[in-house]
C-alpha cells in the first residue's frame, strides 16, 4: 500500500509539480510548434506520451540489465538515443498506417520527437533518481501526461488568442512566449502541493 501511494504521488508530482515543459523547460520546440490547434496538440501529446512511456521502460531495462550490470554507464547517452530513435520510427510507422490525417497534421514534429530533449531528459533522469521499474514507467507516463496537459492548455489559449486584439509587435511568437512564461509561473504554484 505504501508503495502504491508512492507511485500515485510520483505521478502527480511529475504531471504538475515537475512538469517537463513548464518547470523543467524541456521539449519547448514542439510546445511552441504544434500548439496552434487543440486537436493536433492533443495528438502530439498522445504520441509523445506513448514514446515516453515505452522509452522509460526500455531505458530502465537497458540501463539496469546491460549498462549497470556490465559497468558501462558512459554508454547511457548513445544507447538511449538509439532506443528513442527506434521507438519514434515505430510510432511514425504506426500512425502513418492507422491515421494518415494525424500523420499529416503532426508533420515534421513527429520524427522530431527523436530529438525532443524532454524524452532524452526523461531517460537520463531515471537512472539519476534511481527509480524502480514500476516507478520508471509511471514517471515516463506522468511526464507524457504533463507534456500533453501543458501543450493542450497552450493550444487552447492560442486558439482563443486568434480572436484577441494583440498589439502588432507582439503578434505571433512573442505573445506565445509571454503566455508560456505566465503559464510556467502559474505552475510554480503547484510546488507546495505534496512533499516527497
Amino acid at each position, binding site marked *: 500500500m505504501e508503495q502504491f501511494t508512492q507511485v500515485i504521488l510520483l505521478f502527480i508530482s511529475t504531471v504538475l509539480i515537475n512538469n517537463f515543459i513548464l518547470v523543467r523547460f524541456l521539449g519547448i520546440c514542439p510546445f511552441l510548434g504544434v500548439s496552434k490547434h487543440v486537436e493536433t496538440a492533443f495528438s502530439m501529446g498522445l504520441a509523445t506520451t506513448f514514446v515516453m512511456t515505452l522509452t522509460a521502460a526500455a531505458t530502465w531495462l*537497458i540501463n539496469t540489465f*546491460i*549498462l549497470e550490470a*556490465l*559497468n*558501462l554507464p558512459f*554508454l547511457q547517452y*548513445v*544507447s538511449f538515443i*538509439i*532506443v528513442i530513435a*527506434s521507438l519514434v*520510427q*515505430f510510432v511514425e*510507422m*504506426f500512425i*502513418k*498506417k492507422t491515421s494518415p490525417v494525424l500523420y499529416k497534421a503532426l*508533420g*515534421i514534429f513527429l520524427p522530431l520527437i527523436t530529438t525532443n530533449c524532454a524524452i532524452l531528459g526523461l531517460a537520463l533522469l531515471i537512472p539519476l533518481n534511481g527509480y524502480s521499474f514500476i516507478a520508471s514507467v509511471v514517471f515516463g507516463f506522468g511526464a507524457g501526461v504533463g507534456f500533453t496537459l501543458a501543450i493542450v492548455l497552450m493550444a487552447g489559449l492560442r486558439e482563443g488568442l486568434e480572436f484577441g486584439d494583440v498589439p502588432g509587435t507582439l503578434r505571433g511568437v512573442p505573445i506565445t512566449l509571454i503566455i508560456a512564461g505566465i503559464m510556467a509561473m502559474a505552475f510554480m504554484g503547484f510546488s507546495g502541493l505534496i512533499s516527497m
Partner: protein
Amino acid sequence: MDSVYIYSILSMGGISALLAAGLGFASKKFVIDQDPRIDKVEDVLPGANCGACGYAGCASFAEAVVEGDAPVNGCPVGGDKVASNIGDILGKDAGSSTKIVAELLCGGGKKEARRRGEYKGIETCQAADAINGGEKICSFSCLGFGDCEAVCPFDAIVMGENGLPEIDPEKCTACGKCVEACPHNILLLAPNSAKTHIRCSSHDSGKLVRKICEVGCIGCGICARVCPVDAIEMQDNLAVIDYDKCVNCGLCAEKCPTGTIKFQAERIQQVEINDKCVGCTLCAKACPVDAISGEVKERHVIDQDKCIQCGLCFEACNVDAVDLFYEKDL
C-alpha cells in the same frame, strides 16, 4: 580493461540489432499501399524542396497533385517542362500556365519626374514616404529607394540607373512581397503575356501632371477612345487597363501623347487574308472593329481603313489564312 571495449561493442551491437530487427518487422507489418504515381511524380520534380508551390516539399506537392488538390502546373520552378511530364504520368492535360509577374506602374524616374528637393535620411522608401512623400513632387511616384528590391526573395528586382526598379520576368514568381512593400502602391501583379502597360498611377489633374512629370498620365482619355475592345477605362484622371480584355494591339501606346503607355512588343503593321481562306467566318467574328467581311465559304477580305492591326483574326484562324506583316517584312 579490454573487457570494457568488448562489452561496449557487444552490448551496443546487441541493442542495435534487436531494435533494427524490430523496426524491420514493423515496416513489413505496417506497410502502406501508396499510389505508385506519387513516386513517379516526385521523380520528375526538381527536388529542391523550395516550397514555392505552397507545399512543404516536393513529396507533399507530388501527393497533392496525384490527389488532385494541386494543379499539374503548380511547380513554378519546373515550369512547363515539369508540368507536361506530370501531365503524362497522370494522363491530364498540363495546360499552359499563365505566368504572372510584378509590374511597376510608374515611368517617372530621375530624368522624367520633377523633384521638390533632395532627401537625405534613412534610405528606404518607407522612411522617405513618411517624411513628406519622398523627393518627387508626384505623390503617386516611385520613391526610388528600392524597398521592393530589398524585399524580393528571388532577386528579380534590381534598381535601374534611372532610379526605377527593373523586374526580371524570368525570376519573378509573383509572390507579391514587393506589391505589399511599396508605400505608394504602384506595383501590381499582371499576366506576363500582357505587353501593354499604363506606366502611371497618378490621379492628379492633367495640368499638374504636365508640370511635374514628363511621362505621367494627363487623363486625356485618347487611349480609352481608341481601344477597340474597351479595355481601358478612365478612373479619376487616370487611364486604367483591364488585362483580361486587352488584346495587346498596341494602338493605345501609339496614340498616347505623353508616352505613358508602353507597348513591349513589335507592332503589327499590316494584316492580310490569303487564299487559304475557307470562309469559316471565325476571323470576322473575332474582329473587334468589324473590318473583315465576306460570305460564308468564300474568301474574306480586310478593310484596311478599319483594321487596327490587333492580330486577333490571326489567332482565331484555324487554316493559317491570315498573314501578319511586321515592320521588317514590309
